[in-house]
């Protein structure tokens, strides 16, 4: 049986980057990049959004203070900031800004614009929705001069730079925000490498090069056009020449179809994805309030075998805990396999699971597995889990609902067991643990548990600036979460990008939210 290990994953990413990035060749100017986006943003406001459907077409119009490095994730590199320093106590971050940066309307970008944008995120004015308000609530922004921004922390906070590198923290014009704080919902006016040409709702989004972009010589493209298409229209779209790329991800079968049809004209990028499919037990319902039952259900699942089988037909691939396998703070595999549900000896694991169920006095367990009716990867993940539970005599009935109905049921706690997913733009534990917490601390603590120990550990890691110390806490928290099994990750996703090989300068990262400003992308044609 094939085993997927972390070094292989890392190598996969590295090979893909080296093969497809075009590092060896000199970038060429010109051309228009056409790509597909499998959803469309409701409006244009980064601060009120959570979707990649906004990032892919809109990120090229905006700059960030700092951003993740596409070539060296999770390193944070300057964008509008030229450099920064952190005070010894870790409570003050001082950013020196680039000079001469202009917005698309020609007005200069200064520290006032950074402050206005972050103030809008931290304390949104009436009528403005800020999704990540709580995430930045410990920050206060000061502007000692037009070229300096200071972030002062009210409390110690880990991962500040990573949080500031969020692709959703677009920098808006302070002057325009003063006139209308809601302008970003309906208008594009940033300082990114491309300006907006048109948005035909339901069809396309078009941008053209911003000649006043601060990074001289970039962008290389004359422009880009994003087409809003259904997911199943991506493969025909690439083969039929409608567009040349799609940056979210395809499944193995689609990769094969594209390779069969277009042979040598494609570049394939593969790696881990900061997304996983997880099983949520409703701990407010019996018998899922019993840790033995939850552990037994997790232990019945052969994740290692599932990785081998499911990775051939779906984007489910990597075995991991709460943190993405391969990430610096995740539990090493040697430790992970000791936790319930992650053993490689599945026969013994299932025997233990049966004993746990017997100890808990649970016989002939039957329940409904709530899922959304989205095929990839939810259906294969659920079908596999149901089959695995059958092997310990547990019967699960698959109940697939439309996303909006599914969301209602999960949020209201109207389910036995549900298939959920975790997705964010970065690996930071503060983001990754949000679904493992109590409802008091996290709106997506869908399991309904009231275990404040995990909340306390979460808060502690969030306030621990020392990386080694924080890693220790995170790993302890991961061990605890996987042992209590309120939620258990099934498998982590594989990100497969299949683009036309003429597209150069694009790098795969573990997140489909990152490195999408297209400033480094060029066409070899």
């Amino acid at each position, binding site marked *: 049986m094939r085993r997927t290990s972390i070094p292989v994953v890392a190598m996969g990413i590295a090979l893909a980057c080296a093969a497809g990035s075009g590092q060896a060749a000199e970038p060429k100017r010109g051309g228009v990049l056409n790509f597909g986006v499998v959803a469309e943003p*409701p*409006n244009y406001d980064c601060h*009120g959004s*959570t*979707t*990649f459907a906004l990032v892919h077409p809109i990120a090229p119009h905006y700059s960030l203070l700092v951003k993740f490095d596409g070539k060296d994730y999770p390193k944070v590199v300057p964008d509008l900031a030229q450099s920064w320093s952190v005070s010894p106590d870790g409570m003050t971050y001082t950013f020196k800004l680039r000079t001469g940066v202009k917005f698309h309307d020609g007005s200069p970008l200064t520290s006032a614009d950074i402050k206005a944008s972050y103030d809008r995120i931290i304390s*949104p004015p009436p*009528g403005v*929705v*800020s*999704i990540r*308000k*709580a995430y930045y609530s410990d920050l206060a922004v000061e502007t000692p001069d037009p070229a300096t921004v200071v972030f002062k922390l009210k409390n110690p906070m880990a991962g500040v730079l990573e949080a500031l590198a969020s692709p959703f923290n677009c920098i808006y014009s302070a002057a325009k925000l003063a006139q209308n704080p809601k302008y970003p*919902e*309906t208008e594009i006016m940033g300082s990114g490498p491309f300006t907006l040409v048109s948005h*035909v*709702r*339901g*069809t*396309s989004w078009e941008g053209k090069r911003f000649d006043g972009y601060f990074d001289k010589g970039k962008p290389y493209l004359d422009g880009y056009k994003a*087409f809003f*298409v*259904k997911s199943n*229209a991506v493969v*025909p*779209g690439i*083969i*039929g*020449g*409608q*567009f040349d790329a799609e940056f979210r991800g395809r499944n193995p079968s689609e990769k094969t179809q594209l390779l069969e*049809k277009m042979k040598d004209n494609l570049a394939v990028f593969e790696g881990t994805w900061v*997304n996983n499919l997880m099983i949520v037990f409703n701990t407010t319902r019996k018998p899922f309030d019993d840790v033995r039952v939850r552990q037994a259900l997790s232990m019945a699942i052969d994740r290692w075998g599932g990785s081998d089988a499911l990775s051939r037909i779906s984007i489910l691939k990597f075995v991991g805990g709460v943190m993405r396998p391969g990430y610096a703070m995740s539990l090493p595999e040697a430790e992970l396999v000791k936790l319930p549900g992650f053993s490689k000896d599945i026969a013994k694991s299932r025997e233990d699971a049966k004993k746990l169920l017997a100890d808990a006095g649970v016989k002939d367990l039957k329940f409904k597995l709530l899922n959304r009716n989205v095929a990839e990867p939810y259906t294969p993940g659920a079908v596999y889990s149901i089959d695995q539970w059958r092997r310990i005599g547990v019967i699960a009935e698959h109940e697939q609902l*439309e*996303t*909006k*109905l599914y*969301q*209602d049921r999960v*949020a209201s706690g109207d389910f036995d067991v549900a298939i*959920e*997913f*975790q*997705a*964010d733009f970065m690996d930071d534990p503060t983001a990754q643990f*949000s*679904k493992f917490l109590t409802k008091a601390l*996290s*709106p*997506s603590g869908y399991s309904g548990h009231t275990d404040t120990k995990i909340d306390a550990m979460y808060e502690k890691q969030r306030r621990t600036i020392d990386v080694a110390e924080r890693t220790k806490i995170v790993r302890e928290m991961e061990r605890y979460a996987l042992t209590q099994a309120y939620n258990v990750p099934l498998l982590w996703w594989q990100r497969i990008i299949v683009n036309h090989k003429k597209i150069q300068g694009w790098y795969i990262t573990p997140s489909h939210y990152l490195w999408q400003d297209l400033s480094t992308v060029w066409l070899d044609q």
Partner: protein
Amino acid sequence: MLWYVIRRLILVIPTLIGVAIAVFFLIRVMPGDVVVVKLRADGAAVSEEAIQAERKRLGLDKPLYEQFYDYMLGLPRLDLGKSLWTGEAVTKEIALRMPVSFQIAIMAALIAVLIAIPLGTISALYRDSWIDHTVRVVAVSGLAIPSFWLGMLIILGLLSLFNWLPKIGYVPFWQDPIGNLAVTIWPAASVGYRYAAVATRMMRSSLLEVMREDYIRTARAKGVWTRLIMRRHALRNALLPVVTVVGLEFAFLIGGLVVTEQVFNINGIGKLFVDATARGDFNLIQGLVLLIATIFVLVNLIVDLLYGWLDPRIRLT
């Protein structure tokens, strides 16, 4: 006649008010929350505070009677509210998609009429011959094959044979006729085939029935040419039920486009309907239902008026 048309048009108003009231309340019985779909469907841990802020921004925090009052007050001004998803006016969202859907529907209707009348006539004239059998097989296939499946076959055919698909996006016919037809001809053909099949069968059976009428037999007995009998007497009478079918099918076509537009990635009314329903965008669904109801009522009116033109006996005074 004019009074009849005016009376029918006036009757449209209470019909549409009834539809508007029914759809407003029925749609709100549906489970699902557009705000939750908008903010949480991508997996983010969005706070209840943000959810409530968005709900307030969209006016969903108002009591139902207030929302109903606003909605009904807007109707006479053709103000259907704003899309809960995009924030754009519902009329603007619909107007953007109308041209392409309407063009596809017209093209499908033309394809249907141009195929159905000659094929149905030939089939009836050569009843039980190989021509008749062939036409019937083609017609039954049209009924049996779902439009969206035919659409998929067309796409697969284009990809397999030419590695080509038409460009995404709609260009008006007068700006770029070839570009326009390259996009619209395929969905029009796939829905038009079924449409043509229904009308062909109706044309055939209607003509066969008319051909058995006494006045046709009398004309034949008098030695009138078959072609003249067909043109002067048979076809016109046989067309009555065909017109009904073509009219009704046209109204149904908008519904039929729901799936076909998805297949061809056409940004039309059908795709908008699917998206609005999936997201729980009440305002947009209400607007679309009203639009389709209006089309239905108007098409029925046109069919009734055509009756009078085709058959003077039922002409209204």
